[in-house]
């Protein structure tokens, strides 16, 4: 069943996505680097995850009943830190420490450093296997929480992802939701040139998953996709394939020559924030 997301809800999510992008840009400015293109592209999904879908207690990141959000692509840490700031799990004053010595916010996500960072991702292709074990463990405990595994399209190259995909369907893990960020960029170029993975819906469906593919920068579509994934009745794992635009929300970054790591000059961080602020204040759609 599809429902229309209310205008109020969309406005709240739009504000959350704006703040997540802004936090990410401010952290990027601190270090003069970071996977900012990915963070801007994934901000809308993270806004819907942390302001709509996930159950969590910002005062207790280890709350037993929380939904688990696994960041398999550890290099997206800057994006998740921004979401954790938005969620109130990380304090505002920590933002300035991003990537600094002894910071709790290292450049690549690590579980032992950061509250709300469930796993040490970054060795790509591991998150979904961990998610399978987490989902099995939760079910064995009778805990109804969901496990979300956030991963990048490049990780689809890794064989272990498909081991885990087989296993999740075999074990009928209806408490597992995989989120694949499809920006079609990986280290050596467009994914279609590095190792093609389409047709992706067919592949996941053939592996026994409930599949949705949505515009990952459309808040309304994202709300519906998360709702459908959670409400799906059949005992099977769910995947949401998210087509996203790297650099989304900052046109000069959206248009910059696409590659894995978008280069941003020192003066451009403030320009990007100014553009983002102006667009938000003018009410441009997310």
């Amino acid at each position, binding site marked *: 069943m599809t429902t229309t997301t209310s205008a109020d809800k969309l406005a709240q999510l739009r504000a959350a996505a704006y703040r997540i992008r802004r936090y990410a840009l401010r952290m990027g400015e601190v270090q003069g680097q970071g996977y900012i293109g990915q963070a801007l592209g994934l901000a809308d999904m993270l806004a819907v995850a942390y302001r709509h879908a996930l159950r969590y207690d910002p005062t207790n990141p280890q709350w037993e009943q929380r939904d688990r959000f696994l960041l398999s692509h550890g290099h997206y840490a800057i994006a998740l830190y921004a979401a954790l700031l938005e969620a109130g799990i990380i304090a505002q004053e920590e933002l300035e420490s991003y990537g600094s010595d002894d910071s709790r916010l290292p450049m690549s996500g690590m579980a032992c450093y950061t509250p709300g960072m*469930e*796993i*040490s991702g*970054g060795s790509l292709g*591991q998150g979904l*296997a961990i998610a399978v*074990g*987490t989902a099995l463990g939760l079910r*064995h405990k009778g805990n109804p929480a969901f496990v979300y595994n956030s991963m990048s399209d490049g990780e689809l190259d890794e064989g272990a992802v498909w081991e885990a995909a*087989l296993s999740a369907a075999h074990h009928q893990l209806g408490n597992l939701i995989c989120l694949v960020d499809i920006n079609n960029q990986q280290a050596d170029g467009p994914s279609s040139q590095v190792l093609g993975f389409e047709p992706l819906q067919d592949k996941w469906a053939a592996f026994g998953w409930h599949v949705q593919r949505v515009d990952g920068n459309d808040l309304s579509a994202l709300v519906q996709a998360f709702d459908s994934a959670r409400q799906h009745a059949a005992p099977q794992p769910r995947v949401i394939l998210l087509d996203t635009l790297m650099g989304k929300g900052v046109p000069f970054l959206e248009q910059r020559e696409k590659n894995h790591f978008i280069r941003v000059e020192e003066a451009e961080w403030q320009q990007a924030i100014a553009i983002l602020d102006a667009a938000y204040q003018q009410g441009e759609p997310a």
Partner: protein
Amino acid sequence: MNQSASTSVKPRLKTSAMIASIAGDDQRTENAPFGFALKALAEQRPDVVGMTADLAKYTDLHIFAQAWPERFFQMGMAEQLLMGAAGGMAKEGFTPFVTTYAVFASRRAYDFIHQVIAEENLDVKIACALPGLTTGYGPSHQATEDVAIFRGIPGLTIIDPCDALDIREAVPAMAAHRGPVYLRLLRGKVPLVLDEYDYHFEIGKAKLLRDGNDVLIISSGLLTMRALEVAKQLAGDSVDVAVLHSPTIKPLDVKTILAEVQRKPRLVVVAENHASVGGLGEAVAYALLSAGVQPTGPLRHIALPDAFLDAGALPTLHDRYGISTDRMAQAIKAWL
């Protein structure tokens, strides 16, 4: 083939199957000590679960699975998934005992053990069959460098048990230990040897099984069993052999090893069912190096060669590569 060849009565040793016992014909054995110990432990520890990559029967985990079917998780022939999922289970408060063959854990799933399990110091206990040269199936199944591979992982405890008693006592010790553990599992009919000595397994402890004035053998795994046989054999030649069993390879019991090496002038032999590279021998040599300690006698090494080993029957291969009782005794006599 001519007539005389086809009719000659030539004894033929068969290639040792993967599930063959390493026990000699006349040895006392215990059946599936790992499986039965884990089954018993599960009574006391509801957090213990079993997970495998399509090798429950060949790692004795089927004993646990039959007793606790709801606590057994079949992950399919997918070792990276197995280790990743075990990490996820551990994060939810369980203590997974995961099994596969040592070759697959060390060579195929290394990064998952390193990153998912060890980096977060998770309570995953990895029990792997066919360590070192315990199968005649050739390098695809012979984990001759597993210790070398795993010694590099910070915080990973490595246990190389000698016999059924060692395994039986190691299982609850592994569960009680905080952090990841790798066990070189002997499965099936496992020899029972150490009950003849005043010995109990403790993680991190090397124990002197017998004293001797001429030779000190420092050993782990099934080579401790061989070392005890060597000691008996050489006693007939009036050679007095001490055996120091060091089932925990990491963290090594440096204090006990250095004390024994320095206690009296003796030939010191480190013996292991592992390649010469990166195992117990190098660990002992490094302990001496880092402590600035000179052994009071010559220091020698009995180990498998740094090579891809042959397929064949285990007794033949143990003899060929110098880890049979007779070959070990010969080597030690030559060094005296």
